[in-house]
């Protein structure tokens, strides 16, 4: 890459950072320091604002860079991510959004703890929420790293490492100073920028082919060297049965995981009513659906215009396909148009990463302070303000995410996100659905279902080819691979549901009728909602 690219991209990115810092200072002017304000922005956002913020939270760099990159490399199989990510929102809309808004205050554990013995349930749900968030954060950090590597032409690991550290520092600043209000506005700005960038690129791709989608697909197929097979499933997951089950496992994790993501659930608490939560989801589905349709065009566009070989040469997992596509669409390397467009896309991707990590950090600091610290602190200890603890937690989570992000640098970001979704679907979704819909659910069932999903999911990932036993693993040198699939969802999601059922039927605790009635009445009517 030339110096021009770097300078322009860095300028644009600095501008975005400046804007976000101004937002953060602006909203923290009249800070009261209440938990309501820090975690939920006083619940004053409108459905449209929240819808954009949800979209901003959800359309991560993993989607923008990772999915388009996968489609550019393996064609149709990359589309599975887009479909799964979108259909997942129906689970959220139908079963989760309104009920969670009515029942909880700040976190997933609020909903479950309301009808159970509070302490064990909070510790369990808090732990799994933090685990999901950290995995998701790592994915974003890896995205940031590979983007910088491309931007700086792969020079110097040190620069790449410092960028990851910088992203981590910024997210901690946003979250600890601005809380939910700053985070939400950053998400909104980012969602507008990202959609703007994606629409521009999509229009340019379609213009290049004179609006002829057919020719775009044919060109992509020819250029890929796979012919029409590029446009059909099977290139990435079509081999042996292991690969096929991996595909199904991933699909299951994607569609069930979204409803268990802590940073998505916490977004529903930022609007005043369940109806507003529903309308935010409708906005989000519209924006996200449009976005994923465009990533498909961008992916095939990158395959047609850049070619999978060039994409792979730039980054083995395809994360840099879209920036390369932007360079080409603007007129190629060395031209003003190419430079500007490339810089814009790079800056938008940076903005995306910053906004998403801020959202996740906020949600996980809420889990640490509101669920874990609150339950684990010594009863005689000096009581500290919950918001102060949440701010410190944000710093701690930032440090962990940076460290893991540096370690996992070479993995495809879309794939890492798939893992986070698998853990969310196994550990968080069963307990949430059981609490909302099962009259006989007990405390033991709740605790078992969280750990019964979380532990298998994490252990299966550790024993999978992702971590050891294959040349692409995190630790290629050693081999303790026992589980053949890369994504644990197919096994761990049913285990989570099974463990919850088993824990409930074996417990001697009599389910509390009154508290179940309360959960049910509140969830459907909104009576007494915070």
């Amino acid at each position, binding site marked *: 890459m030339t110096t021009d690219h770097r300078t322009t991209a860095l300028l644009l990115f600095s501008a975005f950072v400046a804007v976000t810092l101004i937002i953060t200072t602006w909203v923290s002017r009249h800070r009261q320091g209440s938990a309501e304000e820090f975690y939920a922005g006083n619940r004053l956002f409108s459905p449209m604002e929240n819808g954009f913020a949800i979209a901003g939270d959800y359309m991560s760099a993993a989607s923008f860079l990772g999915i388009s990159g996968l489609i550019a490399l393996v064609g149709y199989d990359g589309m599975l991510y887009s479909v799964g990510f979108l259909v997942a929102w129906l689970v959220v809309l139908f079963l989760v959004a309104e009920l969670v808004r009515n029942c909880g205050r700040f976190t997933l554990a609020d909903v479950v703890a309301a009808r159970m013995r*509070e302490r064990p349930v909070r510790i369990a749900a808090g732990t799994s929420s933090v685990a999901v968030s950290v995995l998701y954060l790592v994915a974003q950090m890896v995205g940031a790293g590979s983007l910088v590597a491309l931007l700086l032409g792969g020079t110097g690991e040190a620069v790449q490492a410092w960028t990851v550290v910088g992203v981590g520092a910024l997210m901690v600043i946003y979250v600890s100073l601005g809380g939910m209000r700053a985070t939400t506005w950053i998400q909104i700005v980012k969602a507008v920028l990202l959609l703007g960038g994606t629409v521009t690129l999509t229009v340019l791709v379609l213009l290049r082919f004179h609006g002829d989608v057919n020719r775009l697909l044919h060109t992509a197929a020819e250029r890929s060297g796979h012919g029409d097979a590029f446009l059909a499933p099977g290139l990435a997951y079509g081999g042996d049965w292991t690969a096929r089950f991996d595909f199904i496992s991933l699909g299951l994790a994607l569609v069930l995981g979204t409803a268990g993501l802590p940073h998505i659930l916490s977004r529903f608490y930022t609007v005043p009513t369940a109806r507003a939560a529903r309308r935010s989801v409708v906005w989000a589905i519209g924006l996200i659906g449009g976005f994923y349709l465009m990533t498909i065009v961008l992916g095939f566009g990158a395959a047609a215009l850049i070619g999978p070989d060039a994409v792979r040469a730039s980054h083995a997992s395809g994360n840099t396909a879209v920036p390369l596509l932007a360079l080409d669409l603007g007129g190629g390397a060395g031209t003003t148009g190419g430079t500007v467009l490339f810089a814009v896309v790079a800056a938008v991707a940076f903005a995306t990463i910053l906004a998403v990590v801020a959202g996740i950090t906020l949600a996980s600091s809420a889990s640490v302070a509101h669920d874990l610290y609150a339950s684990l602190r010594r009863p005689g200890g000096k009581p500290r303000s919950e918001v102060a603890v949440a701010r410190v937690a944000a710093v701690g989570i930032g440090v962990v995410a940076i460290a893991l992000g540096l370690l996992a640098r070479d993995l495809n970001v879309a794939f890492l996100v798939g893992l986070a979704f698998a853990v969310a679907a196994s550990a968080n979704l069963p307990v949430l659905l059981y609490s909302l819909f099962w009259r006989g659910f007990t405390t033991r069932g709740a605790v078992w279902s969280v750990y019964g999903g979380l532990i298998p999911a994490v252990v299966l990932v550790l024993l999978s080819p992702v971590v050891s036993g294959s040349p692409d693993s995190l630790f290629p040198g050693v081999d303790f691979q026992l589980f053949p699939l890369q994504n644990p969802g197919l096994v761990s999601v049913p285990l989570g549901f099974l463990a919850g059922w088993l824990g409930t039927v074996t417990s001697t605790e009599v389910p509390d009728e009154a508290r179940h009635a309360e959960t049910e009445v509140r969830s459907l009517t909104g009576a007494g909602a915070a």
Partner: protein
Amino acid sequence: MQRSNAGDVTYDDPWYDALASGWGESAAAVALPPARPEPAAAPSAAADIYLEVQRSAAFQEVRRRYRRFVVPGAAAFLLWYVAYVVTATTLPGLMARPVAGAVNAGMLAGLGQFLTTFLLTWAYVRHARLRRDRAALELRWDTQEMARGRGGAS
């Protein structure tokens, strides 16, 4: 948010505020675990309100309407999604069958998933608005009214 347990020493501590007020409403104070240092002042009648509402015909109707829509709806889209994923994996030949130009059956199925998602979103929102919202809102006011009358709270 108001609560009746103002005499509680932990009241001003935002820490306790967060934990103990999981429901954010005084009527729910009785539903908290006994281990928590809450005053036993709230009458048990307040807890019975929810049982009473839950057993009322109006609530059962709202719940029935909600479930009659979301259970078949969720089953349908999950089945359609799983069918799509499994077909793409096990029968790639079927998905590769050309339909028109470069567009094959797999492409159509994928875009079909997008389309059904949008349609189901629209149908759900319409159903909720026309069949559920008004009744749910009335129940909400009634419940809160009852809680106020009986618990002496808020």
